[in-house]
């Protein structure tokens, strides 16, 4: 009697576990632990900002404001001023005093990550990465939770706090202009060609060639090539990037990876935990117990 009961219990336990594992496999076989999905990003649109060429003229900012119908930038880049991007200035140029190379200007805007933290944080799937490269969002879907603002390691998405009907604002790499066959307004306006727009693969080639041709001018680091798993905004500089105020502590792991394991284990735990408890209950059940 006891032996018989034990046999049934184990089978039941294994059956339930099998069902749970099968269900979780069906939910996301591609996202299973340890599987790295690699895809070719070389044909995506991207921009290369060569900070050695930037003269801080703010033509990019003005062109951006003109295109997005925002007021013209007021203050100028200054080494004593940190000009953050905001709802009315989607791109800003900042000046940094460096030791050996004097004052260096650099432009900041959305980095258009390959695996964006903002996209994974968006509750309503309003924010998304386009196949072409730019990270954009659906204004009709956005509910204004501002999770994207908190998730972004580059502090990019901004909220129109001053507005009655506030929206999220950030650089969209002029996705609308790209679709019209034009290049982003900032790249078009730059008098120094410090901003180059093109395919990510081409831009990486150009960046590597510049480093190879002028090793005394550039540091051997293309910012954005591998940062947070790679971004569609690439940078070249003559000094280590931390001197320009860039975050160099972000690592090369895409941000969604950090939460994927946890998020994936939620449905798994929901299925497995009851099955396990049920099995335990069956195994320890006395013969007079009733279910």
């Amino acid at each position: 009697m006891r032996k018989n009961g034990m046999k049934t219990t184990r089978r039941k336990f294994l059956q339930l576990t099998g069902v749970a594992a099968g269900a979780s496999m069906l939910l996301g076989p591609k996202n299973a632990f340890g599987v790295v999905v690699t895809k070719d990003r070389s044909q995506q649109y991207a921009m290369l900002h060569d900070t050695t060429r930037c003269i801080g003229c703010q033509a990019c900012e003005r062109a951006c404001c003109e295109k997005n119908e925002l007021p013209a930038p007021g203050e100028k880049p200054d080494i004593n001023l940190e000009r953050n991007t905001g709802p009315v200035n989607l791109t800003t140029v900042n000046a940094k005093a460096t030791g050996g190379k004097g004052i260096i200007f650099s432009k900041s805007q959305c980095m258009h990550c390959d695996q964006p933290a903002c996209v994974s944080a968006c509750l309503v799937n309003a924010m998304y990465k386009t196949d072409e490269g730019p990270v954009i969002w659906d204004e009709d879907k956005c509910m204004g939770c501002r999770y994207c603002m908190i998730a972004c390691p580059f502090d990019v998405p901004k909220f129109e706090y001053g507005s009655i009907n506030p929206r999220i604002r950030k650089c969209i790499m002029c996705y609308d202009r790209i679709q019209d066959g034009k290049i982003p307004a900032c790249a078009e306006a730059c008098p120094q060609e410090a901003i180059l727009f093109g395919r990510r693969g081409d831009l990486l080639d150009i960046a590597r060639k510049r480093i190879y041709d002028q090793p005394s001018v550039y540091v051997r680091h293309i910012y954005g090539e591998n940062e947070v798993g790679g971004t569609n905004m690439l940078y070249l500089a003559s000094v280590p990037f931390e001197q320009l105020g860039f975050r160099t502590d972000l690592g090369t792991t895409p941000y969604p990876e950090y939460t994927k394991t946890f998020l994936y284990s939620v449905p798994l735990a929901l299925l497995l935990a009851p099955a396990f408890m049920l099995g335990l209950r069956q195994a320890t059940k006395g013969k007079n117990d009733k279910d």
Partner: protein
Amino acid sequence: MDKKWEILLAGMILGAVFVFSSQYSWASDLPGVIELDTLSNIYTGVIFDHGMHEDMSSCATCHHHTTGMAVEDAKCARCHEASGQADEVACSGCHATSPGNAEKMKASQAIDLFHTDTTGLKRAYHLLCMGCHEEMEAASGCEDCHLKKEIN
């Protein structure tokens, strides 16, 4: 006697015209005054007086090796010492008018192996002009040439 001198003088003038006109066959195509207004949505156009600059320097100072005049830059001279006048003398013949576009830049350089990473027109202007302008204390600040337009 008078007739003879007249014919000789006329001949000399005619000869001179022939000689010079063959050398400067493109003389009539010189641009004169140009307005550079590609960014007229945010800045006022820039007036460039080509004629005034002709009087200041040799053509080769700006046009590298394309006018057929003596090449000034030693780097250009290595290959173009005796190149003669190029088919395309205008800046926009080599420097792309669509700067910031990597694809067009790559396409324009695909057949021309030695001129890699050629700057676009706008950057070429700035690189070329700023040196002399600063030296001669001519306009060299951003807003000396580019007056900001009211936007939004």
